[in-house]
């Protein structure tokens, strides 16, 4: 006498037993794995996601601590674009490095061998940069540089200070993929954690978190799948792909909208027609009318564009480098060796040459 479940168990075992023999799996996986890495690196350097911008400064130069110089904030108003880019001062670990528009270099990430990373962050209490004792990747740094968040790799997120002292550990089944990273709210009071089933919001003051199960987020997530906070600090946004377009690894997902969720309740608040994903929490203009988005072409090439938050209409030319809206409404881009100030509509105001110390270093810039 056999019942369905017995037959099912046998059938599944038969199928498993009929599997092909493992042959050359490692070699093929290596080849494909390297392609994935290359593609990720290409994508990363193209759209410079997750709050960072690739620029250039050898680590040895930082270790050497170049002669101390007082770094003056650059002029914030320039009427006409400069013909010859103005060279910005050299970096020193002894004072905050200001960029035009009042932005500050808050962290440098120095790539090492074997994907290891070394972080040098600004200690705002002393005004100096210091090397951090940990190497999480990705690493989410709070806007004031006081706290950090990193995934432990088992779904848990550790929150700690610059001296690597644990503040809290949050077990939220954090999503574990290329784009997922902890994202601090603009005022640093909350931390958004992408999870397998939606997202969670951690409150620093109460050391508590809420989990919001939103399976639609993962379902609709495009290749550029990451969260940003809106300037109000109460809402978060993530891009949704066009489900009417067949997915394939051969082409980038087509983004249809950016959906805004309440960080207090997890409820979908509104959907904005959009052809790209907001590049970062700093990508939203102070007045809320514009957002800098990453638009991905079918061949995965990306460009940053300015989009209206009402209809998603694009304006201005594509922007190169990592872009952010400054508090005064202008746009700062930090690219490979150059930084640029733009109007809110993307009209170039001034181009600046970054110090050569920034070669091969990832620079994190915050608005102030």
């Amino acid at each position, binding site marked *: *006498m*056999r*019942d*369905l*479940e017995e*037959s*099912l*168990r*046998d*059938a*599944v*075992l*038969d*199928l*498993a*037993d*009929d*599997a*092909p*023999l*493992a042959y050359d*799996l*490692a070699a*093929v*996986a*290596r*080849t*494909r*794995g*390297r*392609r*994935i*890495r290359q593609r*990720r690196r290409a994508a990363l350097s193209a759209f410079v996601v997750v709050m960072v911008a690739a620029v250039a400064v050898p680590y040895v130069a930082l270790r050497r601590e170049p002669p101390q110089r007082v770094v003056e904030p650059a002029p914030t108003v320039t009427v006409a674009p400069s013909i010859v880019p103005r060279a910005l001062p050299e970096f020193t670990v002894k004072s905050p490095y200001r960029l035009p528009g009042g932005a500050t270099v808050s962290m440098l990430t120095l790539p090492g*061998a*074997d*994907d*290891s990373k070394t972080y040098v962050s600004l200690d705002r209490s002393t005004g100096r940069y210091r090397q951090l004792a940990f190497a999480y*990747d990705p690493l989410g740094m709070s806007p004031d540089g006081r706290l950090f968040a990193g995934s432990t*790799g*088992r779904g848990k997120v550790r929150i700690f200070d610059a001296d690597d002292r644990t503040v809290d550990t949050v077990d939220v*089944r954090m999503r*574990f993929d290329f784009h997922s990273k902890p994202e601090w709210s603009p005022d640093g009071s909350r931390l958004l954690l992408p999870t*397998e*089933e939606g997202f969670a919001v951690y409150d620093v003051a109460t050391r508590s978190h809420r989990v919001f*199960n939103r*399976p639609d987020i*993962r*379902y609709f997530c495009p290749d550029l799948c990451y969260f940003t906070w809106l300037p109000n600090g109460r809402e978060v946004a993530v891009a949704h792909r066009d489900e009417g377009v*067949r*997915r*394939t690894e051969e082409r980038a997902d087509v983004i249809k909208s950016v959906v805004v969720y309440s960080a207090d309740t997890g409820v979908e608040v509104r959907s904005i027609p959009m052809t790209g994903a907001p590049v970062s929490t700093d990508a939203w203009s102070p007045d809320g009318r514009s957002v800098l988005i990453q638009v991905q072409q079918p061949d995965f090439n990306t460009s940053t564009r300015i989009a209206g938050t009402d209809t998603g209409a694009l304006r201005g030319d594509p922007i190169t480098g990592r872009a952010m809206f400054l508090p005064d409404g202008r746009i700062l881009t930090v690219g490979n060796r150059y930084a640029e100030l733009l109007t809110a509509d993307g009209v170039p105001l001034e181009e600046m040459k970054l110090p050569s110390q920034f070669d091969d270093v990832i620079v994190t810039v915050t608005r102030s």
Partner: protein
Amino acid sequence: MRQSLEDEFTAFVAARGQSLLRIAHALTGDREAAQDLVQGALAKAYAKWPRIHTDAEAYVRKIIYNDRASAWRRPGRQNEVTVAEVPDVATSDHHDQHVADRLTVQRALLSLPARQRAVLVMRYLEDRSVEETAEALGCRPGTVASQASRALVKLRGLVGDRLTSMGGAR
């Protein structure tokens, strides 16, 4: 990647590759698709090996199940056989009848949506608990239970009468 990590990856694939292929074949019912599924998962693992090597098997298995389970929303990747009715299999004696039962169930299993099939493979091949299955598939335990229940109802609808007629009990 550091040589020691490269060696570790090679050793991991050598030790666990066949086991992963068994899971993949149970999920796909197709040798080529199974190999592709495992190679894809291993490639993803290789790409971030320095980060995941301490928990590599769980990571790879999770990718296999999720890549397969998410295939349901990627029409171009579906290889499910849509069957309104599972064909009869000729039988002659008791042993043959069991074999026929298993073939019948196999075909019915492969006709299920990928996510339901993933749940059944985890539960019946790997003997994973509902909670473990939910963890691997990135869903709630309740979802696993309902998917398993629906899958069994569907299987019963496809083969139940036939098994009963062949001497099975329900």
